[in-house]
Every structure is written in C-alpha cells, then in structure tokens.
C-alpha cells in the first residue's frame, strides 16, 4: 500500500504541476500541451477509430516480421545447432552481418519494396532474426546428447526428430530468444514508421507533431507506452509459466 502510494507520488506531482503551470500560462500550450487536453485528444482518437487503426497497422507489421523471423531463426538455428561443422563455416558470415544496425536497412528496404507493410516487415525480420537464431543454436547444442542418439536408434525421420525430440527439448530456451525478439519487433516497427513509412502509430505521431497537434501526439506516445508495458508484463507472465524452462522438464511428458 505504502509502496503503491510512493510509486504514484512522483508521476502525480508531475501531472498536477504540468496542468497547473500550463493553465497559468507558464508552460507553452503549442509544444507541451497539457494533461487534460491530451486525455481529450486521446479519447477523440479512440472514438473516431484512428488510433485503433494505426495500432493495428503497427502491430500487424511487428507480428508479421516477428513470425517470419521466428520461422527462419528456428529453422536455421536447428540446422546449425545440429551440425557444428556447418556452424563453423557459416558462423563468421553471420557474425559479420549481425552488427549492421537494422535501421541502416530502412533505405535499402524502401528501395526494394517501396512504402508499405513489406518494407517495414523485412527490416523487422532482420532485427529479430539474430536473437532467435543464436538462442536456438545454443539451445540445440544444449540438448542431452543421449536424446539425439536415441532418435538415431529409433531411426526417426527429420520431421519426427524435430517434433518429438528437438523442439520439445529446446523450446524452453528458444522462448527466451522469442521474448527478446518480440519486444524488438515493436520497437523497430515504430522506428521505421517514425523515420519514413507512412502507416501506423509512429507515422501518426510524426503527422500530429508536424500539423501542430501536440495533444494528439502525446496521447499516442502514452498509448505506445501502455502497449509496450502491457506486452512486457504479458511476456514476463508467460515466460514464468513456460513448461520446464530448463530442457528436461518438457521432455518427460513427451517420452
């Protein structure tokens, strides 16, 4: 109780003094707006559906990019994880590509795809791929070697080996990489929109700023903060509940 009060104290003081100083004419309305105006602008934005549409566009790009990156990352991660020799050959090329900041690819992606979902999606794929790939390689390396031997003895095909042995054993650790990647996907989506892609919440903020609607811009900023926060909380919950975060737990049920 006391802690909740303390946590709310500083934000409350800031908001109240913001509103008061703005009404007293000390803070400029045209750049800082004021909390009551921001709430109103946010309410209007939700009422006419524009914020929800922009949110959907951003989330759509983030999830699409994330899904493609997850499929590619897990697929190549399993292949490279199972074959250390291949990993030694391909690894340095991966290490050379990884430090390229994903945002440097925004102009390149625009050149290739033009404005729209696709260009945003591919930048997100590039950004999300590395954490998933590296974690998957490490997770597959960490699988109990006897389980892989067993799959050889049972003469399982590739698909069966994947479904019955590899994925169940590695998924706990892969989920850590997926979690990192999905937070990245939202950040990159907003960034691409802020820089140049005319869709989604990031673009909405830029337009609100350029057309001198600071109240709407701050409302969208707060909404983005809430989205990011909710995503974070949801991910922490699911990760805590993941079956057998370590490798063996999930296995036992399957075998």
């Amino acid at each position, binding site marked *: 109780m*006391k*802690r909740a009060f*303390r*946590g*709310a*104290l*500083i*934000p409350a003081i800031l908001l109240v003094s913001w509103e008061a100083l703005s009404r007293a004419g000390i803070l400029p309305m045209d*750049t*800082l707006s004021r909390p009551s105006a921001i709430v109103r602008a946010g309410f209007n934005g939700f009422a006419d559906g524009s914020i929800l549409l922009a949110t959907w566009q951003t989330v759509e790009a983030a999830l699409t990019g994330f899904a493609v990156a997850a499929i590619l990352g897990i697929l190549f991660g399993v292949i490279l994880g199972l074959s250390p*020799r291949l990993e*030694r*050959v*391909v*690894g*340095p*090329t991966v290490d*050379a*590509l990884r*430090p*390229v*900041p*994903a*945002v*440097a*690819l*925004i*102009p*390149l992606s*625009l*050149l*290739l795809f033009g404005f729209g979902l696709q260009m945003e999606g591919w930048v997100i794929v590039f950004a999300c791929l590395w954490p998933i790939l590296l974690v998957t390689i490490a997770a597959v390396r960490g699988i109990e070697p006897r389980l892989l031997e067993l799959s050889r003895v049972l003469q399982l095909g590739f698909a069966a080996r994947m479904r019955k042995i590899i994925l169940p054993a590695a998924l706990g650790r892969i989920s850590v990489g997926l979690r990192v990647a999905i*937070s990245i996907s*939202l*950040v990159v989506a*907003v*960034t691409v929109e*802020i*820089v*140049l892609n005319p869709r989604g*919440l*990031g673009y909405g*903020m*830029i337009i*609100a*700023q350029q057309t001198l609607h*600071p109240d709407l*811009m*701050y409302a969208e*900023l707060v909404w*983005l*903060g809430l989205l*990011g*926060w909710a*995503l*974070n909380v949801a991910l922490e919950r699911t990760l805590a509940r993941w079956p057998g975060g370590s490798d063996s737990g999930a296995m036992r049920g399957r075998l």
Partner: protein
Amino acid sequence: MRWLRSSSGAALFALALLLAWQVMADHKIISPVFFPSPSRTLGELWREIRAGELWAPLGATTLRMFYGWVLASLLGVAIGAAIGSSRTARDYLNPLLEFMRPLPASAIIPPAILLLGLSNEMATAVIAFGAIWPVLLSSVHGFSSIEPQLLDVSAALRLTRMQLLAKIAVPGALPDILAGARVSLAIALILAVVTEMQASQPGLGQNILLAQRSYRSPELYAGVVTLGVLGFLINHGLMLLERRLLRWRPAIA
C-alpha cells in the same frame, strides 16, 4: 591446423556468397539497381575513402552516438546507484521507470523535435533516453548485490559514505555497469542513425537515405557496410576495454 581448416572453410563460404552475388549482378540475373555487385559497392567505398568523403559523416555519426552514450551512462549509473542502494528511492522511482522502459526510444523523437527543434541537443536527448536502460538496469543490479560481508567490513573500518562508494560499491558494480554500457553503445549507434534519417542531421544515416532517394545504390550499400563495420568495432572495442579494466578480478566462469 584444425583452426586453419575451419576458418578457411568459413572464408570460402563468405567468398562464394560474394562471388555468386557478383556474377549474378554482372549478368543482370538480379537487378544491379537493387543489388549492385560487391565490386561496385567496395569500389564506391574505396573511392569515398580516397576522396576523403567518408570521414566527415562517419565522424559526425560517431560523435553523435558518443555524446548520447556518455550522457546515458552518467545518468544511468547515477540513477542506478540511487535505486540500487536505497529502498526508498526504488519505491519512488521504479513504477515510473517501469512504464518508460518499454517505450520505443524513437517514439520520443516527435516530442523531442517539438521541444528542442531539429538540433544536436534533440539528437543527444533521444539517444540518451534510449541508451540509458541497459546501463541503468545493470547498475541497479550491480549496486544492490554488494556482498553483505563487505558492508560489515566497511562499517568496522568506519568508512565514510564517499569512501564506501569509491572503494567498495563502484568496483563491485563495475563489471555489471560495463556490460550494460556495451549494450547501451549499440543502441546509441542505432538511435544516432535514426535521428539522422528522421531529423536531417548530417551523418551516415542521412547519407544512405539521400543515396536511396537518388537511386545511387552502390553508395547506399557502402553506407550500410560502413555502419556494420562501425557497429562491429565499437562492440569489440568495448569488450577489449572491459577485459582490461576488469583484469584485477579473478576469472569467475
């Protein structure tokens, strides 16, 4: 010997990829407008180096990244030390920080432009805001996990608060802080490029965007390669520094 064999395999793989790209671009199997051959990209990069055109934007981006990172590190360590060593500070600040942390850093570009204009201060503020979190979180961890025995020792020696900070708290938290600062620097580079693209600040980010607008694709790829090399160098540079600064510490793992 085995090392040589595996690394030559890796080099062959990379060369084969580049060669395939080169051949396909030369024979127009893939469009040279979208995927210019590696030789044209490297030729452009070489030309920029020889004409001295590379250094101004490279320097501008590096400096921008560096200013934002220094500001983020100073603020991050200060706030992190306060939160990590005082329960009261944590109660007051944590909820606010928990809300701000997942906010995409580039989302504060529009308000920052509104408040600070299209300026270097704006870029520094945005970079610092985005890059502060890793160093902040790791220094919270570093300062809150000081050995209780060391605190007993410092009490027995009657160290003042400043002495405690300088002799025990900071050296103890340093490994965490440095690890966080390395992640922060990578974020600072990303945000430096973003602010250059969005707010027309001079630098590599603006250069590649302009190259794209006029379809000078070798220049665009040369810029991407430069940024990749820069990202690689800063990461490894800080890792070396980390190892040097932490040499006094017995290896744990």
